[in-house]
């Protein structure tokens, strides 16, 4: 559903992404890496908000070179940005309904789709609360509701678990697995346990490159016999991959 060939992005003088090759289908794919690794840039390119400089990007088989194809893609994706500039005066329901309208959903489908999205993130009881009165974790879930309101085929989530408490995180991972059955979900995170519990496979990024692409189990196996720091096997696997203890692996 997502394919990139030699994708490169330079912002200012910094080369933020180097020759990225991706080929991702349905499932939940984790993008893990330290701050500044290029995770957000990658998500923004795939979400059609940032123009790439080199290489090719195809989302759902369409290139993002032309406006028509881009609009077509935009109807079928969901995007949770790292921070969203919502109107504090909106209620949760109004905000999601507004995004549904922007996504060109048929007007008669909007009310039920909005409530379904809010129910899936467990916020239906707060649907008529103004956004300014919601906690950080709740806002994050409203953001997720707008991302899934159009039943996207590609869902791009930038640090979705930031601000969620442990219980909400568990529910969130459950939701991701559910959506990932037939959609392509890409989750950027710096939390190793998100990857361990919700993702089929993981790409570890460092300085604009993918240094390791493997399944979550393989990452744990990498950590099991490593001396690298970390509280769990998968965390140790992550540190091992980052430090290049082994040559960048491919699946």
């Amino acid at each position: 559903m997502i394919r990139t060939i030699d994708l490169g992005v330079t912002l200012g003088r910094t080369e933020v992404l180097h020759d990225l090759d991706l080929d991702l289908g349905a499932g939940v794919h984790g993008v893990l890496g330290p701050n500044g690794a290029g995770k957000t840039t990658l998500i923004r390119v795939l979400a059609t908000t940032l123009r790439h400089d080199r290489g090719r990007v195809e989302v759902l088989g369409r290139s993002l070179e032309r406006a028509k194809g881009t609009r077509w893609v935009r109807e079928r994706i969901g995007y949770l940005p790292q921070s969203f500039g919502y109107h504090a005066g909106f209620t949760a329901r109004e905000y999601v309904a507004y995004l549904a309208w922007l996504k060109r959903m048929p007007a008669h489908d909007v009310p039920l789709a909005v409530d379904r999205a809010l129910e899936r993130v467990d916020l239906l009881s707060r649907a008529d609360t103004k956004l300014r009165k919601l906690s950080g974790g709740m806002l994050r879930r409203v953001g997720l509701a707008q991302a899934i309101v159009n039943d996207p085929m590609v869902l791009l989530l930038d640090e979705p678990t930031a601000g969620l408490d442990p219980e909400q995180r568990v529910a969130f991972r459950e939701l991701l697995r559910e959506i990932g059955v037939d959609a392509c979900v890409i989750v950027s995170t710096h939390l190793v346990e998100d990857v361990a519990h919700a993702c089929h496979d993981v790409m570890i990024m460092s300085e604009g490159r993918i240094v390791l692409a493997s399944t979550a189990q393989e990452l744990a196996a990498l950590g099991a016999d490593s001396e690298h720091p970390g509280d769990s096997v998968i965390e140790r696997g992550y540190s091992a991959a980052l430090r290049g203890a082994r040559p960048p692996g491919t699946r």
Partner: protein
Amino acid sequence: MSFPEAWHAAPRTLQQYSDGTLTDTASWSVEAHLPGCEVCRERLAGLLSEQDWSELDARRQELRLAHQPAVNAPALARAPGWASLRGVLGPWWAWVGVVLAAFAAVTVLGRAPLPPTSLLTSWAAAVAPLVPLVMVAMVYAVGDRDPAAAVTPRGGLELVLIRTFAVLVMAIPTVTLGMVAGDTAGLPWLLPGLALCAGALALGPSVGVERSCVGLAVLWMAVVVAAMPPVGLTSAASLIEPVGTTSVLWGCTLLVAVGVIAVQRDRFDLPGRLS
């Protein structure tokens, strides 16, 4: 799944089932068979009458509603329309304020005395064409700046045009009434006002609509200063209060700007580098 012919329900059985004349036990068998057999479902569909279909649709709708979460019906009924308007323009009270301020400014400046050597007939002429431009900049300041909204199919050109149209609907009567109240009715402000607005949109994909609005507003103010003493340029004064050939110039500027917007309309909908 594919079945040999013997495994399918006999045509007569299906006919009786659709008429409701099949025995209970046989109906039960048919119902057990249908979910797994596309062929029989299709055959049955062919036997259904117009009335059967409308009954089915009603039943389906009923089921859909029964499985929906409890909803707040009045909030829902008005949600999409109101929510979109609020998202596009920002809170209504901000616009009440902007419209009142613009009206007051045009009225008061219409009556304010100019320096005796000024080439302008009224301060209102210097300010009125700026009103639509400033309001376009405002809609970007108080409307939503949500990165999630920017990557929607409506979030590009369509949103820009809706916002500009809404601004013009507010700005044109406001300025016109303000001029009437300030005894300056008849000043030719609309053409420069529209041309500045269109110019800002034409530059939008390259520098961002907000930035182009601010840039053009500053440029306009520079022209205003040029028409004042001690500079006192006649050409600057006739730009602000277009007379004769100058209004043709403004008309051409407007047409060119609209043309530029049309030619590069796709750039509004492509991934960018600005936000």
